[in-house]
């Protein structure tokens, strides 16, 4: 039987050098908001065009306006206050502003379509015109709960916090569907992060994550994928594959060895094959990517495969990240040929 082969980005894409310059100028009061909006529009359009040229089936605007993965949430959810303090984003050399939990976290009624404010709409219109799926990556409930400064739930009610974030996502999915999204990826680096506490090291936390997803995201209105990265997912992969509401599990193969999961049964789930290193500038050849993906598919027997970077590409300069998109695009056709 033919297997579906797709390609997509894993989240926030780097800004172009022109956007970097303009945003720096804006920050130093040497450029206007109109100048900045205009350069972001050009940047987003170029990125969507590149994904279309590279045969990506799920296309995003690179989430170029997102200052960090949590920012739209910390700026808009009820119960959260946008933080001023910068914290290191995992073991990268980038930083995020840690939100503070003031009270019960929920989706605001008035601003329920807040994602709209972080979209580059003229860029996403190009995707719509081309008839491809509009995609977005958002932080998953466990990662959200791990990265906030919790002044409300405290340790004993951590499960409740994870559940409340899952509930926010459940409601948000309806809004995203209304905004035309056809693919939503939950980014969950905290589940498997190789350093420090994670669901790998704390069974109780894994249990609360599983329960939160089962209770809130069992039948999502949009296909949901879950991408694990910055750590080895092998110890918890089978538990993730049991989640009914998740149709695709993404694996960061720079951290998880294929050997360690070769006995895992993917069943009806698709594989997000994150073999393209999102944190190194060495651009993989299409042949190398294809070879890795074919091996992964033959080993794990998933229902489909999506080729994507191991993590967001925002850790790379734009020129390199774009090269990685092109390489993934070429790899898709090789994989299709070899598997079908």
């Amino acid at each position, binding site marked *: 039987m033919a297997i579906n082969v797709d390609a997509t980005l894993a989240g926030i894409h780097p800004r172009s050098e022109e956007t970097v310059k303009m945003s720096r100028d804006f920050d130093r009061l040497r450029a206007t908001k109109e100048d900045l909006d205009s350069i972001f529009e050009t940047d987003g359009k170029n990125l969507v065009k590149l994904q279309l040229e590279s045969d990506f089936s799920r296309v995003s605007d690179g989430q170029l306006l997102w200052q960090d993965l949590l920012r739209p949430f910390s700026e808009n959810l009820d119960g959260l206050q946008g933080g001023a303090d910068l914290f290191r984003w995992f073991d990268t050399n980038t930083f995020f502003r840690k939100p503070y939990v003031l009270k019960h976290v929920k989706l605001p009624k008035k601003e329920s379509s807040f994602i709209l404010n972080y979209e580059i709409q003229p860029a996403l219109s190009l995707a719509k015109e081309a008839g491809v799926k509009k995609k977005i990556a958002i932080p998953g409930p466990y990662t959200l709960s791990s990265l906030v400064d919790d002044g409300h739930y405290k340790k004993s009610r951590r499960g409740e916090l994870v559940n409340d974030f899952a509930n926010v996502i459940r409601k948000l999915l309806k809004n995203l569907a209304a905004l035309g999204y056809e693919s939503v990826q939950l980014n969950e680096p905290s589940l498997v992060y190789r350093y420090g506490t994670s669901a790998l090291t704390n069974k109780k936390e894994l249990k609360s994550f599983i329960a939160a997803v089962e209770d809130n995201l069992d039948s999502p209105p949009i296909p949901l994928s879950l991408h694990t990265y910055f750590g080895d997912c092998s110890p918890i992969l089978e538990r993730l594959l049991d989640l009914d509401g998740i149709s695709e599990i993404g694996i960061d193969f720079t951290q998880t060895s294929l050997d360690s999961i070769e006995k895992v049964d993917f069943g009806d789930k698709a594989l997000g094959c994150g073999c393209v290193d999102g944190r190194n500038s060495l651009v993989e050849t299409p042949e190398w990517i294809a070879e890795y993906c074919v091996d992964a598919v033959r080993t794990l027997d998933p229902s489909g495969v999506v080729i994507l970077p191991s993590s967001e590409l925002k850790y790379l*300069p734009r020129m390199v990240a774009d090269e990685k998109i092109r390489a993934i695009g070429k790899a898709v056709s090789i994989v299709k040929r070899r598997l079908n």
Partner: protein
Amino acid sequence: MSGDKSKLLPLQEIGSIAKPPWRVKGVNNDSRISESDIENAELWGERLGVKEYQKLIDVLSHRSQSTIPPTDEEKELIRDYSVEYVLSLFENVGLDRVYSGEQWRVEMYEHLVRNIKGFKLLGSVHSFDYKYFTKGAIVEQPEFIHPIHLEEFQFVKSHTKRVVKIPVTGPYTVVDWSFNEFYETAARKKAKGRRIDLRRTYFEARRNFIMDLVKNALRPEVESLIKNGANWIQIDEPAVTTRPDDEEMQLFADAINALTHGFNGCVFSVHNCYSDYKLLAKYSVELKDISQLALEFANRDSTDLGTDKEFRPGYADLKHFENEGYEGGFGLGVLHVHDFSGKPGKGATIEGRNVLESPKLVRDRILFASKLLKNPDRISVNPDCGLRTRDWETTFKKLKAMAEGAELARAKLS
């Protein structure tokens, strides 16, 4: 050991100082010197007693009228004066160990890799909000092509009588902040035909990169400095403990030992900040030639007065080093160098986004550390990190408070 036995609690600088506006604009072909830039140079030249600063004012005045880009000679003169200004600032407040405030350098990473063969700067990477940094990749074997810091060192040495302590960006940080193309390619080639474990490949490539960087580029650099009279080198390693596991920490220790091994007559110190000191302490005893760890503590401390542990939570981390058996010296960070949020305690005041430590707060921080270490001879006193994010007025006030606080501590200890 402190490296300077003549004085209890010697004072030292630790990193970069903000480049004055006339320094930034004066060497930029597209910028124009303004009246306020000239006033700034006059004000600080006069206040710090910089020798012959009028020469700088003349050049800046000329630049403010000119529409053609500055000549190389003008750029050099402006850059050199910025070093003299920093040295005068340090000497004025009474620092014993000084350097250039890194006025000659673009920035601690870029300056180094631009001058080592094998690196290629690839472009901008997001740091946060609308802030970015330039990141490079190693694309061939690293190679020393010419001394990188020698000219700067010689200039500083000829303009001060204080102990000169040269900061050099450390191998672990350079590798952690660079992409690894060359060694990753080699490692993947080695694995050809077999299923590849990218995590193992990555680490092997990282080890090969760091060891070659030390051997082929950083050791020759250190050697050239020592041959020309350098007797204190500070190895800056802010990236250490970013990846907190034993394999990575061993890599750091191995690289530092490979870098410092066999050089006589030079003190080596390591600067690290905003880090996991429990983990660093575990490996501090493995750093065979390191005489001092210069660390940030003020950032994690309270601003209340007092020498009991309830008032000095930031300095309690020193005990990790004691528990591990580390016997070397400390560069004790006593000044917070970033924006301060919250309400200060009785030992500090707020000016804008700056916290200004009082001399008494500095004193209490030193006295607590002395008590914990049981030996004040092991302590040198410095800011947490470079003060480059503070304006000169704030920097001056902070360093002055540091010097006065150390004097108060000396009086108590002697």
